[in-house]
């Protein structure tokens, strides 16, 4: 496109003409500049150096002040010279044992950090110099010049095929085959012990020239045993817009998305935007997509995020053949809500976060439908018992913070929640927190490997009335990262009850086989659970899992 090339060149020259003083426009004009004989913190040293060079070379020299990142250096320089003359001077200096460099004079730019003080009171300065601007040599009638191509001044949007309107159209994702083995005999009638299946997680990402984008991430799992675990979800389907506003940036996301809040590893108390996809994994870390209107403003004073959540997602629960469940099934057909608007109640959430040096702090609030249901038994027509989920209206205030030091981290998550029933079915407001620390040994035994040890204390003031397994527990874990080509990682963790006997061990080993294939092994061992534990009914459901993933 010669025409647009010419237009772009013209704009470049014009733009440069506005930013700098007059400069040569001849294609042959060599750049000019000064010869630098050294930069010194101490003005006296610079003066002495100037004396020495004057004597050696017999040239006119000056000491100028150069400010580099708030430090003033005193620089011994020649007067402004054409490049060829300057090069000769450098050569002459070298012959006499004097080092020197050539500095191309720079067109002043607003974002250039160099600040050459033009007149120091005592020293006559060679500045200001005639400023040959970077692309001055590129005159419009010259063929395309590399230097000009490198200047990205987005000025002409060529009228071409629609695909050119987009920066990127990416289709990526993964396909996994997984199998679990529950190695202890079943605890409840109908359960099966060797489910296999696959997971498909494609992702489409389309970004236009302004950086605005649309993301589509569907999810599908097939499970050979449990039809409830065979499920599809829309993890993400949102349009993202952002831009500058005042001193900061705004960002908005409209559609279905996931938002993560929190800092700890065991139990992210503050993380409340998305519903738990419990059939995926009992660790409650898999989440369902959440319809939302999201707005954020990122200023110098921190980040403020607002969420409007117009639709409630129900928690998933295993079906009749599934392990990791109660003796009775949860029937989401008989769900009830405290709000008359049921799942269409508009929940609202907000979070303020900011980094204060070593400290990252987040303060959050949520008002709306609980993500955690209260399960009450119902007797069906055939006298069978099922559990009916009931979702209450709750309020939650959250605090999360992390202090990041050289090799260790201190972490806290705390919430105060009201409006939710405890394990006894009584409404009880409560506070809960997770407090922990993490230490990393880098370069273990003189290898590239890192070992991280972490300890977290999970406390819920409801104690025995808590609806979670983290009522008063200690979470201990160690993570070994080999930092090798395969990205091999081993994570071993233990959740230990302190009020009563409960011990849950997990081990997870993952790594790449090739650049496209990776493997993951996991073992969850429920070693001991006393009858008071929330997990008691799943006490026989220890398992090992193998997964093979192809990423594209």
């Amino acid at each position: 496109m010669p025409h647009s090339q010419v237009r772009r060149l013209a704009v470049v020259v014009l733009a440069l003409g506005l930013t700098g003083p007059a400069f040569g426009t001849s294609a042959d004009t060599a750049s000019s500049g000064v010869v630098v004989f050294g930069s010194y913190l101490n003005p006296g040293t610079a003066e002495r150096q100037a004396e020495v060079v004057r004597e050696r070379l017999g040239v006119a020299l000056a000491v100028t002040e150069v400010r580099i990142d708030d430090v003033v250096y005193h620089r011994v320089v020649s007067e402004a010279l054409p490049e060829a003359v300057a090069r000769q001077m450098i050569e002459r200096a070298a012959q006499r044992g004097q080092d020197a460099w050539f500095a191309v004079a720079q067109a002043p730019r607003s974002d250039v950090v160099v600040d050459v003080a033009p007149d120091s009171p005592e020293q006559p300065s060679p500045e200001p110099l005639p400023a040959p601007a970077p692309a001055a040599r590129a005159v419009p009638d010259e063929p395309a010049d590399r230097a000009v191509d490198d200047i990205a001044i987005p000025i002409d949007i060529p009228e071409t095929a629609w695909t050119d309107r987009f920066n990127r159209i990416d289709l990526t994702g993964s396909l996994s085959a997984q199998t679990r083995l529950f190695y202890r005999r079943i605890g409840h009638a109908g359960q099966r012990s060797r489910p296999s299946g696959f997971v498909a997680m494609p992702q489409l990402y389309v970004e236009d020239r302004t950086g605005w984008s649309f993301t589509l991430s569907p999810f599908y799992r097939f499970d050979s045993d449990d039809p409830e675990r065979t499920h599809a979800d829309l993890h993400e389907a949102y349009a993202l817009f952002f831009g500058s506003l005042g001193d900061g940036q705004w960002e908005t996301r409209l559609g279905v998305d996931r938002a993560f809040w929190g800092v700890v590893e065991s139990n992210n108390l503050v993380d409340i935007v998305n519903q738990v996809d419990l059939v995926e994994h009992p660790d409650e870390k898999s989440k369902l997509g959440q319809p939302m209107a999201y707005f954020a403003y990122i200023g110098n004073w921190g980040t403020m995020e607002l969420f409007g959540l117009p639709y409630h997602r129900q928690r998933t629960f295993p079906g009749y053949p599934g392990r990791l469940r109660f003796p009775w099934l949860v029937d989401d057909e008989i769900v009830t809500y405290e709000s008359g608007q049921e799942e269409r109640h508009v929940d609202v959430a907000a979070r303020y976060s900011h980094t204060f040096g070593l400290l990252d702090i987040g303060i959050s609030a949520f008002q709306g439908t609980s993500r955690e249901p209260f399960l009450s038994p119902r007797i069906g027509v055939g006298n069978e018992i099922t559990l009916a989920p009931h979702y209450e209206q709750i309020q939650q205030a959250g605090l999360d913070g992390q202090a990041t030091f050289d090799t260790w981290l201190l972490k806290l998550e705390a919430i105060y929640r009201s409006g939710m029933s405890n394990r006894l079915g009584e409404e009880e407001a409560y506070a809960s927190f997770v407090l922990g620390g993490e230490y990393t040994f880098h370069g273990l035994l003189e290898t590239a490997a890192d070992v991280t040890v972490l300890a977290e204390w999970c406390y819920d003031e409801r104690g025995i009335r808590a609806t979670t397994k983290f009522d008063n527990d200690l979470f201990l874990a160690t993570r070994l990262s080999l930092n090798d080509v395969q990205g091999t990682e081993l994570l071993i963790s233990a959740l230990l009850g302190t009020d009563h006997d409960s011990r849950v061990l997990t081990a997870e080993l993952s790594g790449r086989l090739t650049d496209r294939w990776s493997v993951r092994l996991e073992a969850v061992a429920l070693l001991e659970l006393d009858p008071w534990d929330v997990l008691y009914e799943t006490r026989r459901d220890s398992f090992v899992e193998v997964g093979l993933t192809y990423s594209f």
Partner: protein
Amino acid sequence: MTLALLRGAIAAAIVAAAIPGSDAAAQELTAAEQKGLDIALEARERRLGFGNFTARQNMLLRNKRGQESQRELRVKVMEVDGDGDMSLFVFDEPRDVQGTAFLIHAHKDKGDDQWLYLPALKRVKRISSGNRSGSFMGSEFAYEDMTPPEVEKFTYRHLRDEPCGELTCTVVERNPTDERSGYSRQTVWRDTEELRIWKVEYFDRKNAHLKTLNLDGYERHLDRFWQAGQMDMVNHLTGKSTTLTWTDYVFQGELDAGDFTQAGLRRAR
């Protein structure tokens, strides 16, 4: 008090006034140290004013047996007034970490701030800066090799000038002042004309010659900024090597400081 004494006192006062505290250290530098520092300062100054750039990186990892593995990254770098650069790395390959992003706010006077974005959980994690000497994505480049070293984080000593190819190189030894660095010293070859780095030898904490970096394929951007197109890092202790190839440089594009925040990290992909 005699006039001579008074003169002496005034002279002493003037000398004292002329040496502010920050200059005291500079006074003690030997000629070789001063020259080494001068070269580093000059090289930094030539890099000032680039504003920002984006580029693509391809890493080819090779082990002793010749087995290869690829890494693809996109990089955004922004210059910060009075502090280290902000850098954002987004991974495209290997595919299992596609979309993982890494944000560094480099600092001159303290440890860098670093955040990692994990797309599977949509989680941003602030990570400690204690991993400076750790391997970057299993390559022979350490985290500390991935961002331009800050002048303030080293002491310098000029060793010699010697021919390097058609050019003359000035050879400077630099010693990291940061205890977290995995190196005891580095020897840097720069050509005297443009102060481009052509070779770096890295010595580990036990002063063994650990790695050698060779740079090539220099191109000048915006008529001022020299960038190497290819960087070859060889680890002499393990026999492994990594070739880092830079392409698609765009200088002074439409980047915003907001692209280098946690929110920017989340949408980087």
